[in-house]
């Protein structure tokens, strides 16, 4: 009895809009996930070294610059009444920032009442929020504007109006906004990078592309 030969695995390819050569997309879903996790990592996995390096260096540098400008306070996840961090939707375009932020938010709001490590990517304390003793000491030691008198027991009750994010904004001024802008824009631009890892370069349907007079090849850009 003749055995049926295994059907060949489908190959996912895209067509370069510059010279018409094919681009092996390997496993597009995995590449897209990797590019979400770290910008450009999916392209590196596909062997597209130049673009992968360009994406990784430029987007990570912008994201880290934003973190630095914002004093390390601008990336956090919070959906609590009075502190809805809509900018996180954009920042979550970069997975290495989104995952720790979500973990820290869950830990601070959960039974642990304290984030991991030094509290990076942790949401700010809200007025009346309960924290653990070790996190209380950590906040007092790390935030120059918060002292022991800003806590009633384990509850955060700052003397100044507002909550911890108000203190951050007062201290950092417009740098808080610029840091937020840098990190958010880096996350949003990474959505294009994720699409590039998934389906190859974007094309103009008109057949003419930016800055390049060479015609875009017709037909589908992705053969499956």
């Amino acid at each position: 009895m003749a055995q049926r030969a295994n059907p060949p695995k489908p190959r996912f390819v895209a067509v370069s809009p510059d010279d018409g050569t094919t681009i092996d997309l390997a496993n597009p879903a995995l590449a897209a996930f990797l590019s979400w996790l770290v910008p450009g990592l999916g392209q590196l996995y596909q062997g597209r070294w130049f673009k992968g390096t360009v994406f990784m260096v430029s987007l990570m540098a912008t994201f880290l610059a934003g973190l630095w400008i914002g004093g390390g306070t601008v990336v956090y996840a919070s959906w609590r009444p009075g502190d809805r961090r809509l900018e996180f939707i954009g920042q979550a375009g970069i997975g290495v920032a989104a995952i720790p932020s979500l973990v820290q938010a869950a830990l601070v709001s959960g039974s642990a009442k304290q984030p991991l490590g030094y509290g990076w990517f942790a949401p700010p304390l809200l007025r009346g929020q309960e924290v653990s003793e070790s996190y209380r000491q950590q906040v007092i030691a790390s935030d120059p504007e918060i002292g022991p008198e800003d806590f009633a027991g384990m509850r955060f009750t700052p003397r100044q109006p507002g909550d911890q994010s108000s203190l951050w904004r007062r201290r950092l001024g417009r740098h808080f906004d610029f840091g937020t802008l840098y990190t958010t824009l880096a996350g949003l631009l990474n959505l294009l990078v994720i699409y590039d890892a998934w389906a190859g370069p974007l094309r103009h349907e008109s057949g003419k592309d930016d800055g390049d007079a060479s015609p875009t090849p017709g037909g589908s850009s992705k053969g499956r």
Partner: protein
Amino acid sequence: MSALCLAASLASPILATFADRVPGMFFGLPLLALASLIFAATHHEDPAAIGLATVHWTVWLGGILGVVLAVVLLLGTFS
């Protein structure tokens, strides 16, 4: 050389005034470059084509944003 120094000395107070009027501009320039680079690199595969398209996108985005900025400044000045 001296002409260059003279031009620089004349231009620097103007630039400083402009930067003072528009403090966010210098924070925005790297973002303009980043957006241009990402737009270009997601539309091309060849490094040379990416370089050309980056310049192309920078001129377009910078031009559009520059016009918007100029209009806002003019409105702010005359209002």
